[in-house]
C-alpha cells in the first residue's frame, strides 16, 4: 500500500518534463513515451542498484539454501548454491530440537511488551511535560534525557542485582521492564504534542473534558501514526536484544529466540555441527522482524528517522 503511493509520486516526478497542462492524461503518457530515448545512464543506475541488492541478499539466500539441504550436501565441494529438497524435514527438526515454539513466543512477548511499555510510559510523561505546569518538570525531562547516556553495559552488574532482588530473574517482567524507559520515544511524543494547535486543548477544556479524557479522546487518535512508527522500531529492538535476555534468563523456558539459536551451535569438537539445522533456526529467528519491516516499511522509515531527532 505504502509502496504504491510512493511509486506514484516518483513516476509523476519523473514525468515533470512532459507537457501536462490541459492535455488529457493518456495523451501525456503517450507523448512522453515517444519522447523517451533509451537512457543508458538510468540503465546503469538500475544495474548498480540491482548489484547492491544482490550483494545484500546473498547471505540470506545462502542461509536459506543451506537450510534446505541434507548435511552431506552442505559439506560437499564445490558448495551447492541451489536449494535442495530437505526444507520441511530440516525446519521440523530444527523446530523440535531448539524448542522453537517457546522461543518464538518468548521473543514475541518481549518485543511487544517492550514496545508497548515504552510507548505507553513515554506518552504519559510527554503529556505531563507538555500539558501541565508542575515543579520538577525540568528535572524529569533531563533525567529522561540522561538515560540516553546509560546503555545497558555501563550499569549491567547492578541492574542484574536489582532485578535479582526483585525476584525477576527468569520472568517476563525482568525481561521487559528494565528496558522500558525511553528518551527517544518521550522526545518524539513531546515534539508531536507541541505541534498540536493550542485551540484543541482549549476547546476540550471548554467542553468540560478533563486531562485524561483529552489524552484519550483527542491526543491518542491523533498519535496513531507516531505510535505505529515507534512500534515497528521498538519491536525490532526488543526482538533482537541479546545482552539483557542472556544475563537474566537461565532456564530454557524463558530464552528468547536470538539467544536460543546459539544453543544449536556445538562448541565441543566431538559433535558434528548440523549446519542445515542451524541455518533453518536462523531463518525462523530472523523472519518475524524482517517481515515486520517489509510489511510496515513506511512506518519503519518514519519511526527510524523521527525518533532520532
Amino acid at each position, binding site marked *: 500500500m505504502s509502496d504504491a503511493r510512493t511509486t506514484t509520486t516518483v513516476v509523476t516526478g519523473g514525468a515533470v518534463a512532459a507537457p501536462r497542462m490541459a492535455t488529457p492524461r493518456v495523451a501525456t503518457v503517450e507523448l512522453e513515451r515517444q519522447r523517451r530515448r533509451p537512457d543508458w545512464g538510468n540503465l546503469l543506475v538500475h544495474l548498480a542498484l540491482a548489484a547492491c541488492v544482490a550483494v545484500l541478499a546473498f547471505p540470506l539466500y545462502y542461509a536459506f539454501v543451506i537450510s534446505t539441504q541434507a548435511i552431506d550436501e552442505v559439506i560437499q565441494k564445490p558448495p551447492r548454491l541451489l536449494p535442495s529438497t530437505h526444507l520441511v524435514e530440516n525446519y521440523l527438526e530444527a523446530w523440535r530440537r531448539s524448542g522453537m515454539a517457546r522461543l518464538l513466543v518468548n521473543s514475541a512477548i518481549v518485543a511487544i511488551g517492550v514496545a508497548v511499555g515504552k510507548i505507553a510510559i513515554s506518552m504519559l510523561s510527554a503529556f505531563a511535560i507538555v500539558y501541565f505546569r508542575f515543579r520538577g518538570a525540568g528535572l524529569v525531562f533531563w533525567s529522561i534525557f540522561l538515560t540516553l547516556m546509560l546503555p545497558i553495559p555501563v550499569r549491567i552488574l*547492578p541492574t542484574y542485582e536489582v532485578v535479582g532482588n526483585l525476584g525477576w530473574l527468569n520472568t517476563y517482567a525482568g525481561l521487559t521492564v528494565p528496558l522500558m524507559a525511553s528518551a527517544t520515544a518521550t522526545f518524539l511524543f513531546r515534539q508531536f504534542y507541541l505541534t498540536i494547535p493550542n485551540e484543541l486543548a482549549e476547546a476540550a477544556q471548554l467542553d468540560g473534558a478533563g486531562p485524561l479524557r483529552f489524552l484519550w479522546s483527542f491526543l491518542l487518535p491523533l498519535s496513531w501514526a507516531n505510535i505505529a512508527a515507534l512500534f515497528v522500531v521498538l519491536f525490532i529492538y526488543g526482538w533482537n536484544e541479546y545482552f539483557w535476555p542472556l544475563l537474566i534468563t537461565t532456564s530454557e523456558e524463558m530464552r528468547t529466540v536470538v539467544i536460543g539459536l546459539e544453543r544449536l551451535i556445538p562448541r565441543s569438537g566431538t559433535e558434528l555441527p548440523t549446519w542445515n539445522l542451524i541455518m533453518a533456526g536462523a531463518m525462523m529467528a530472523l523472519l518475524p522482524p524482517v517481515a515486520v519491516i517489509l510489511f510496515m516499511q513506511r512506518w519503519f522509515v518514519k519511526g527510524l528517522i523521527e525518533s532520532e531527532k
Partner: protein
Amino acid sequence: MKRTVFPNRWLPYLLVLPQVLVTIVFFFWPAGKSLYLSVFKSPPFGGRDVFIGLDNFVALLTDRDYYDSVLNSFVFAAGVTGISVVGGLVVAVLANQKIRGLAVYRTALLWPYGIAPAVAGIIFLFIFHPAYGILPYFLSFVTAYEFNWLLKGWVAMALVILATSWTHLGYNIAFFLAGLQAIPTSVMEAANVDGAGPVRKFTAIIVPLISPVTFYLVVVNMVFAFFNSFGVIHAVTHGGPGNATEIMVFKLWKDGFVGLNLGSSAAQSVILMAVVIGLTMLQFRFAEKKVTY
C-alpha cells in the same frame, strides 16, 4: 508561545511516575552503584566492601588485555562505521537518482536491519567456515593463504565487522535517503545548468549538504558498535581466537559474570560511561536540531 495547561496539582506526577520509577530503579541507581563498585573491592560471595580508591582503574590501565580490548573496540567500531556509513551513502546516492521503482529498491535494501547482529553473525560464521564455507572455498583458488577465522585473529574480526555492517547498512541508507531528498531540486538543477557532471555534483553539492547527516550517523554507528555489539561477539567468536575480537563490552561481561571480578567490571563500566557521554555530547553539540526544554 504560551500553551494551554490543565490545572491539576498531582496528576502530572502520577503521569510521569512510571517513567521516573523505571529510570531511577533500572538506570540511575545501577549507574550510581557502578560508580560505587568501581572504587571498592567486593568479594563475589558476600562480605564487606573495602574502599580501594582508584586501584581498579590503575589495574585496568596497566593491564595489557584491557588495552587490547580497547584497541579491538576501536578497530571494530571503525570498521563497522566505515563500511556502513560509506556504503550507505553510495547506495543512497544511487537510489536517489530519478528512476522508477525507488520504493522497491528502498525496501530491497532496508530489510537486513531487521536481522539481529547475532543471527547475522551465525550466518556469516558459516560463510567464513574454514572447512565448508563458501568464502574460504573461493579464496582458495586465488591464494594459498589459510583463511581460517578460528586461527587468524584478523579474519575473525573481519567476520564480525562484515556481519554487523550487513545488518546496519539499511539504517544508514534510510537516513541518507531522507537527507538527500531534503536537498532542494533547484540546487541540483542549478548544478545541471552549470554543466556539473555526476562526480562533481557528488563532491561539491551532495557531500557538503549531507554532512550533518553523515556526522550524526558516524556518531550513532560508533555508539552502536561500542555498546550493542555484545551479541555478535558472544554468538560467534566468544572474543577469540585468543582475544582478537574481545571488545570492551565483552571483556566487561567476561570479567564480571564469568570471572566474578566485580570491581574491575564496574571500573570498565565507568570507562564505557565516559565514552558514551563523550559521544552523546559530540552528537548534540553538532546536531542541527538541539534538544531544548
